[in-house]
């Protein structure tokens, strides 16, 4: 009886509050734009050759900020990996995994996730998305493989933490080079349109924005996958290491 009273009161509160919000509260929509928004809307495509003003702000107008942010995330993941490192390399074992049914469904889902993540990353200069969301989505695919197929399958296929950290280092070096290259010609650091071409054979590539997206995609995907690999090491191994 008590449960029913609680449930009915929750239902009543929900309905009442939704009615109150829809009838009483005025949801105000701004009718005018600020000058800064007007500038971005009018000039993004001219300044950066990118129709997506969020990507343009993140990687062009505020590009230096994002490059440093990437550096902070790089250091955070390096710190995490340093804590979880164990002597004698990654432990290997027999792959066990889940049932046939879940494996087959995971194959389809992983393929879908990989496709969608690539689309998010490589269209980042045209549509909402970009390198970071795309890379995180690709890392989800490997995180799905670890419980369903076991981490040993990944290791057998050659996706080891050493290789992932190497890919991450390569991608971040590339990112730094893309940011630094304009300095050679006497331009500012993280310059886009004055140095990189906005169009390639008539296709919009938005100069350095698509390069940043591609490299950030690689860096984030490999970094998060490496973290997932290390988190799948059983606790007993670390305890044994402390005892030694």
């Amino acid at each position: 009886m008590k449960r029913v009273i609680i449930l009915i009161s929750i239902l009543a509160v929900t309905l009442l509050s939704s009615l109150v919000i829809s009838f009483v509260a005025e949801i105000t929509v701004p009718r005018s734009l600020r000058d800064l928004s007007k500038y971005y809307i009018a000039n993004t495509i001219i300044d950066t050759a990118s129709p997506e003003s969020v990507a343009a702000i993140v990687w062009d107008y505020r590009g230096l900020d994002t490059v440093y942010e990437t550096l902070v995330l790089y250091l955070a993941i390096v710190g995490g990996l340093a804590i979880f490192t164990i002597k004698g390399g990654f432990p290997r074992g027999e792959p066990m995994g889940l049932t046939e049914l879940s494996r087959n469904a995971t194959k389809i889902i992983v393929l879908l996730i990989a496709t969608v993540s690539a689309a998010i990353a490589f269209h980042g200069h045209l549509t909402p998305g970009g390198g970071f969301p795309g890379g995180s989505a690709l890392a989800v695919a490997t995180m799905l493989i670890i419980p369903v197929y076991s981490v040993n399958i990944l290791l057998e296929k050659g996706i080891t933490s050493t290789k992932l950290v190497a890919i991450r280092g390569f991608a971040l070096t590339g990112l730094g080079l893309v940011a630094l290259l304009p300095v050679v010609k006497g331009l500012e650091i993280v310059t886009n349109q004055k140095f990189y071409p906005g169009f390639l054979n008539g296709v919009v590539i938005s100069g350095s924005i698509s390069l940043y997206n591609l490299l950030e995609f690689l860096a984030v995907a490999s970094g998060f996958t490496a973290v997932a690999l290390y988190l799948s090491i059983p606790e007993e191994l670390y305890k044994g290491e402390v005892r030694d």
Partner: protein
Amino acid sequence: MIEAVLFWIGAFLFILGGVFDLLAAIGMIRFPNFYVRLHAATIGAIYGAVLPLIGISLMALGIPELPGRYAVAGASFITAIILLVVAPVGSHVLAYAAHKSKSVPWSPVVDALEKDEEK
């Protein structure tokens, strides 16, 4: 004509999905143990989510004045297909894990799984 037919079929599927959701919710409360409740939850996920999504895609196709109706229809149809693949696997894995870890009481009338595993 064809638009109206699509719209009403879509609306019917949409409302049918709501009915199945209600049934699933009643089942979640009334059913006696974990496995049967899982069955009710999966009904909510398949008939209560996949059917309305297909209904939405048909309804979107049935409204010619809706801007971007093909995008709405395609996105909801693809979401329905993905749910159709994912949701049964989710409940399968949940039931498998609960059975293997013996974390819920197991008192079957007929145990076909045990016979399968004996072979």
